[in-house]
């Protein structure tokens, strides 16, 4: 058992993670649902009463309870991993990425999952915190619903199901992501 835990505690390579994620997607389909995490934002708005004013949120959210349970599980999965399966919190990013981020003023890149100097409650109202956490979160919520899905719904389920709309959405994901990371981030991180 201890050896098994030790085995699980190593970082997982892409060829383990990818097939397991496909399994999660296929099992959800076998259960009669479709994989799509961002729909939960709409469900939460609906539970909060947004359907009274806006018809988009006026739907039977009870049909989406399974999806809320799924993200509760995702939260617990993160908790279990950090408590028992994560002896080393370092992220195995490339040396090129590390030295590049150091040149932009990021301290100890890859030491934790997030750049902790920006992602903390005290930095929330700095330029970086406002743009990256609050602005970024807003764009994620707005964009996913506009595009009708996020990485799970379009990039994983939609592409697996050979849907052209999903390919267009994923191209959009990369246009947006490449713009920010390559053109904006060097200035934003150096503020």
């Amino acid at each position, binding site marked *: 058992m201890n050896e098994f835990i030790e085995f699980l505690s190593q970082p997982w390579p892409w060829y383990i993670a990818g097939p397991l994620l496909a399994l999660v997607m296929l*099992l959800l389909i076998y259960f009669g649902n479709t994989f799509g995490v961002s729909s939960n934002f709409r469900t939460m708005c609906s539970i909060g009463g947004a359907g009274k004013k806006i018809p988009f949120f006026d739907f039977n959210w009870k049909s989406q309870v399974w999806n809320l349970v799924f993200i509760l599980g995702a939260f617990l999965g993160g908790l279990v991993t950090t408590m028992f399966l994560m002896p080393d919190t370092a992220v195995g990013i490339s040396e090129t990425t590390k030295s590049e981020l150091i040149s932009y003023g990021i301290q100890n890149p890859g030491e934790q*999952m997030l750049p902790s100097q920006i992602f903390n409650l005290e930095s929330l109202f700095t330029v970086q915190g406002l743009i990256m*956490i609050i*602005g970024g979160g807003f764009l994620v919520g707005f964009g996913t619903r506009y595009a009708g899905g996020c990485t799970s719904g379009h990039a994983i389920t939609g592409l697996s199901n050979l849907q052209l709309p999903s390919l267009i959405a994923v191209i959009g994901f990369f246009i947006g992501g490449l713009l920010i990371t390559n053109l904006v981030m060097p200035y934003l991180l150096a503020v």
Partner: protein
Amino acid sequence: MKYLKYLVLGILFGIILTKSEVISWFRIYEMFRFQSFHMYGVIGSTVLIGMLGLQWIKRKNIHSIYGQPIQIADKKMSVSRYLIGGTIFGLGWALTGACPGPMFVLLGNGFVVILVAIAAALVGTYVYGALRHKLPH
């Protein structure tokens, strides 16, 4: 009881995303800088296996656990909706370093500040719902 299987799958999802570092802001940055194969390997192998699995489900006419035929609705064709919406999402993905799934997993990993990103995403979804009829789809 019928929800237990979703809880178990969600836990598995959270463990996979943490152990493969997909929830890391640094991994997303590295991906958009083409400095590592890791994220492309994760997404690519998921889609490849997913594609084979879905083809198999369709060919064999597999029924769901409740005995219903499995149908995955085709997405309605549009270019503007997916391209504009997708690009907006991409901007947010690169800024927060997290798409919706990883946000909940990061919270479980103890990064409380991500609650603010989730709250902002809820506001974003609400604003989309309010402006929906004015946007090109």
